[in-house]
């Protein structure tokens, strides 16, 4: 192998000269040089640049403590907002749902989050109002975010209008005009995990027929 800098993602670790795999899953590669191991679990291992849905647990002087379904709570600095200064620190109640980006995720330390993208703009991050949040496995949330669009979301989108936020930590938030649309979307997504593309479309048609 030629001299090449390889970036190791989640599931891989470097011990001196050897690279060892830390969890079971599929080895994925993305150009030019990123390798990582992908698997589906209920708990989440924080990774840098992931977008996650977090719940506020507590607020301290410098950070908010956020639960992102990881091994430890994550910190969200009070200044990590667009145009954030000491004067306009937002007030989040315990139980607020936030859409966040993971900035630092080192083994053994509390991960650090942010409500801005890499350039400092707000870009859809921040608190989510109303709607309903439910939990899924990490594999299903990756499927929902993959492109081309996941069949279940496409089939639902043809008939219903709703808003959705998917966290890579296994949390999905849905909002729509009426409660029964929200319930149908949530149940359709939760049922679609073990179904193939064609089966997902059939399942969605079945659910939609029941409410109309």
């Amino acid at each position: 192998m030629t001299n090449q800098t390889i970036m190791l993602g989640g599931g891989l670790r470097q011990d001196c000269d050897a690279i060892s795999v830390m969890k079971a899953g599929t080895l994925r590669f993305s150009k030019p040089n990123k390798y990582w191991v992908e698997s589906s679990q209920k708990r989440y291992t924080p990774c840098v640049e992931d977008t996650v849905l977090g719940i506020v647990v507590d607020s301290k002087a410098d950070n908010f403590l956020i639960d992102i379904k990881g091994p430890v709570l994550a910190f969200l600095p009070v200044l990590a907002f667009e145009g954030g200064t000491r004067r306009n620190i937002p007030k989040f109640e315990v139980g607020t749902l936030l859409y966040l980006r993971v900035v630092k995720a080192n083994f053994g330390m509390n991960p650090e989050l942010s409500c801005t993208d890499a350039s400092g703009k707000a870009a859809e991050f921040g608190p989510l109002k109303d709607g309903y949040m439910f939990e899924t496995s990490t594999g299903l949330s990756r499927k929902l975010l993959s492109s081309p669009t996941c069949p279940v979301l496409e089939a639902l989108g043809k008939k219903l209008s709703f808003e959705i936020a998917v966290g890579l930590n296994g949390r999905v938030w849905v909002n729509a005009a009426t409660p029964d649309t929200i319930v149908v979307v949530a149940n359709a997504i939760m049922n679609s995990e073990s179904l193939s593309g064609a089966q997902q479309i059939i399942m969605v048609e079945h659910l939609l027929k029941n409410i109309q």
Partner: protein
Amino acid sequence: MEGRLANAWRLTANDKSFIRTALLSEIRIDGRKPYEYRKIVVKFGREDGSSEVQLGQTRVMGIVTAQLVQPYRDRPKEGILSIFTEVSPMADPSFEPGHPGELAVELGRIIDRGLRESKAVDTESLCVLAGKFVWAIRIDLHILDNGGNLVDAANIAALAALLTFRRPECSLGGEDGQEVIVHPPEIREPLPLIVHHLPIAITFGFFSNDSILVIDPTHNEEAVMGGRMTTTVNANGDICAIQKAGGEGVPQRVIMQCLQLATAKAAGITKQIKEAVEVYNTERALRKIKRHPTSTGVNVKERQDQSVGK
């Protein structure tokens, strides 16, 4: 402390208000109607007296065992019935290993009261030698997964296990007829328990806005609801027990409404339990038939053709 915080299950403020808003339009988050029960699946293990019940995502296992003991002094001719509950931390992050919390104790007491006060299990038939030996029936309930409404699921598991349990037959012998001989199951077929009726526990959840009532609350609904009530009724319409511990107050007509709903549901659930037990008993009887290995016949014409061909 932080580790425990990270593992706790939380409900967002969005979910709390959504569950309440959706209930105003009579919609529950799993798509059920307010008075609809989740799907109940009753399975049995290989041993007599072990059952596993699934109520949606909630799973409970019930195991019944029996032992010969000395009866209580004030009831020398009655057997003993006791219920033990074990909650595993795998079922819910709020359960701690070791000593059972308030929830486990309350669960055990509701099921115990339903079975004991209504005399569902006949304890007098459990007496072997009055004053000396009686059968002590022990029901162990293991909570495997908490998806809400543990009481109902645990109650069905206890009933299913009791109906399929078989105790060894024993007779009195010895010189003065005071010795108890317990016959092993291979010699004498073990006997089922005498269960007069099945007390079914039905749990209701109350929500404060507009006094909304739901049956069989899920885990999320339990975290949001204002109060709960468990009524234990049987298919004949008898009320065996009612438990309403704390929570918000409800008017009398709501309690009467709950009792009527519970009696209607109890009939359906009793039928389901009895059907599952029937299937298990048939399977058990088929297992007992010993087939002689050489008794399967061979086609006579085939053998003739073979010998002619040679």
